[in-house]
């Protein structure tokens, strides 16, 4: 049964035709599941069909990955995800680095029913897997951050609609990931996407800086600027041309060389740009022109928050901070300045030291949905760093939010600090992993869990992956950890110096891999060395550049 959409802020409001489309899609997949269970379809035929609907076969069960376009949920959607976790999973959900949520214990026979339940709240699992354009990610502070140049969600939605079931791009050589930001601070890792878009306002409308060929995985590559200023009206035509060139020339004979980054590296950026321009010359670009009217239509389906705060909201916040040092510490690490002086963006850490990064329980999901209704216009955002954001919290109500989060066990004051660890599910759940990542993330979280120690260390990121596919983005952590199988034993390689932002950099490998506990000790020695040798205000990356990898290597291996 389709329920009418509430006028929640943050994401595109479905039209009736969107809901009809979802029902038709579910009917189709339900038939495919039925034919698979009856034996009419073999696994080889069925696998690409289930993947296109977000269904993987993992270590213990099927895994369902649900799309959260540009990471924005409303409270009824979060309640629904909690209901699904309670009914079909083991009372948990796991937020991913692609701003999606995964359920790890799903039965294939239940998937069509789950998809119908998701459709009740305008959600689906389409294109969360397979060789197609995946969920478009965006800035977690979109439409709220003080430093924002332009709200990227409108164009993220336009890209989502363009890419959903695009007939030419359903069977690409390999998966394709697009991110879009509208901030001068790259919070979406734009240079590590197949296409990264940085939007800004221009004199005659929005302009888009377009990076191409970035990515992590087996061959980490920093994306390169293909165009500096794509006009809004040309945005979809340009994306179409890039995808056409990739679809035509990307390799299909070798899984490991099939991403667009390999094509761009192989033929060179200039040749790739020429190919895109030639494709644009051949295309009927008028058919792809993004008109101001079209953009306005999409924009109109985003509700805006009514940002009214009492005149003394900021004063009240200061009083709360003075009265409660623990709250003040949380405010310092877990908030971001808002465009409106009376509001703030609050980041909810899903990295309570010792817990599993990105995991939330059913109780927490319901609790967060309730809190968002009361304190942030019923809107919850998922970050690609596996945390959540309430985008618009009144400053005078921030203490109330913090108390609510404490009651849910979600008030860790560690966003951007060392225990805010990004991690893939690793060998505990994933069919592809070589080593477990979650136990090591838990140990590191516990080791550095002390709030005062974290505050002393300051901004420092740890990213961890259980295999070379790099779902935990280990290449871009200041400290990266990669699980490797060494003759049947789980070991961990350490990388240093990664950066996903404006100063995009791929971490350098320190040396031979460590056993799990040795890796924890090595990271501790690296951090201790940083604390002892850093100059005033020097970041970890800056000190690494000054001292060199060799100095850190000597410290890391000194007792091994």
């Amino acid at each position: 049964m389709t329920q009418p959409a509430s006028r929640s802020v943050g994401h595109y409001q479905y039209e009736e035709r969107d809901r009809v489309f979802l029902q038709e899609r579910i009917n189709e997949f339900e038939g495919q599941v039925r034919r698979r269970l009856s034996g009419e379809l073999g696994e080889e035929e069925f696998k690409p069909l289930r993947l296109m609907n977000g269904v993987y076969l993992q270590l213990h069960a099927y895994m369902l990955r649900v799309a959260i376009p540009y990471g924005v949920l409303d409270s009824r959607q979060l309640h629904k995800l909690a209901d699904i976790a309670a009914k079909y999973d083991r009372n948990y959900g796991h937020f991913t680095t692609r701003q999606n949520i995964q359920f790890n214990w799903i039965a294939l026979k239940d998937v069509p029913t789950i998809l119908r339940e998701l459709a009740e709240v305008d959600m689906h699992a389409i294109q969360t897997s397979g060789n197609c354009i995946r969920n478009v990610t965006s800035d977690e502070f979109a439409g709220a951050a003080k430093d924002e140049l332009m709200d990227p969600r409108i164009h993220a939605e336009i890209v989502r609609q363009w890419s959903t079931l695009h007939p030419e791009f359903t069977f690409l050589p390999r998966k394709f990931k697009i991110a879009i930001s509208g901030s001068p601070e790259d919070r979406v890792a734009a240079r590590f996407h197949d296409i990264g878009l940085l939007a800004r306002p221009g004199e005659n409308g929005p302009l888009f800086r377009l990076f191409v060929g970035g990515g992590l995985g087996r061959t980490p590559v920093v994306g390169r600027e293909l165009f500096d200023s794509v006009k809004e009206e040309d945005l979809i035509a340009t994306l179409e041309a890039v995808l056409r060139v990739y679809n035509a020339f990307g390799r299909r004979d070798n899984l490991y060389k099939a991403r667009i980054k390999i094509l761009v590296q192989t033929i060179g950026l200039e040749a790739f740009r020429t190919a895109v321009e030639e494709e644009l010359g051949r295309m009927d670009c008028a058919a792809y022109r993004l008109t101001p009217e079209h953009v306005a239509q999409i924009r109109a389906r985003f509700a805006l928050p009514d940002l009214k705060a009492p005149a003394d909201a900021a004063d009240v916040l200061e009083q709360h901070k003075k009265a409660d040092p623990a709250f003040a510490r949380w405010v310092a690490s877990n908030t971001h300045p808002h465009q409106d002086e009376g509001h703030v963006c609050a980041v909810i850490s899903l990295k309570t030291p010792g817990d599993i990064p990105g995991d939330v329980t059913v109780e927490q999901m319901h609790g967060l949905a309730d809190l968002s209704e009361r304190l942030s216009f019923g809107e919850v955002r998922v970050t690609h760093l596996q945390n959540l954001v309430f985008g618009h919290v009144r400053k005078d109500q921030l203490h109330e939010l913090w108390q609510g989060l404490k009651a849910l066990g979600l008030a860790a004051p560690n966003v951007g600090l060392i225990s805010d660890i990004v991690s893939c599910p690793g060998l505990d759940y994933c069919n592809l992993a070589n080593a477990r990542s979650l136990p090591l993330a838990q140990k590191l979280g516990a080791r550095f869990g002390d709030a005062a120690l974290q505050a002393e260390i300051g901004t420092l990121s740890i990213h961890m992956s259980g295999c070379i596919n790099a779902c935990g983005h280990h290449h871009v952590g200041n400290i990266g950890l990669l699980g490797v199988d060494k003759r049947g034993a789980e070991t961990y390689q350490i990388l240093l110096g990664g950066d996903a932002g404006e100063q995009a950099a791929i971490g350098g490998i320190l040396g031979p891999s460590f056993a799990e506990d040795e890796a924890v000790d090595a990271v501790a020695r690296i951090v201790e060395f940083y604390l002892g040798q850093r100059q005033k205000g020097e970041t970890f990356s800056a000190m690494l550049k000054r001292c060199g990898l060799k100095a850190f290597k000597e410290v890391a291996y000194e007792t091994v």
Partner: protein
Amino acid sequence: MKRLSRPGEGEILLLTASRLLDGRIVWLGEGDHWHESITGAIRFTYEDAGPALERALAEAGQKEVVSVYEVVARDTQPPEPVTTREAIRAHGPSVHPDFSYDHAPVREKESAL
């Protein structure tokens, strides 16, 4: 057909798969039935495992299992997979032993059948 893993001293081979309906890990037991617990798994020598695997692969559709392959295990009671990956499959995620099928609430066990 791919080459089988070769068991070492004191090790045997088991055959495992995922159940089509719910993805649950199963082990080939007596009478060519797929069992939910590793305790019911048949122990194969390297020589016997090849033909058994071929037969299991051929019958996978009929038996409603997918992804059939062999696992090296220590010849203990019950057999214990040698690799971490297979131990995790047999016993559940190391970070959540309470999530394993052995510990799952009864309703989940029933729904999986």
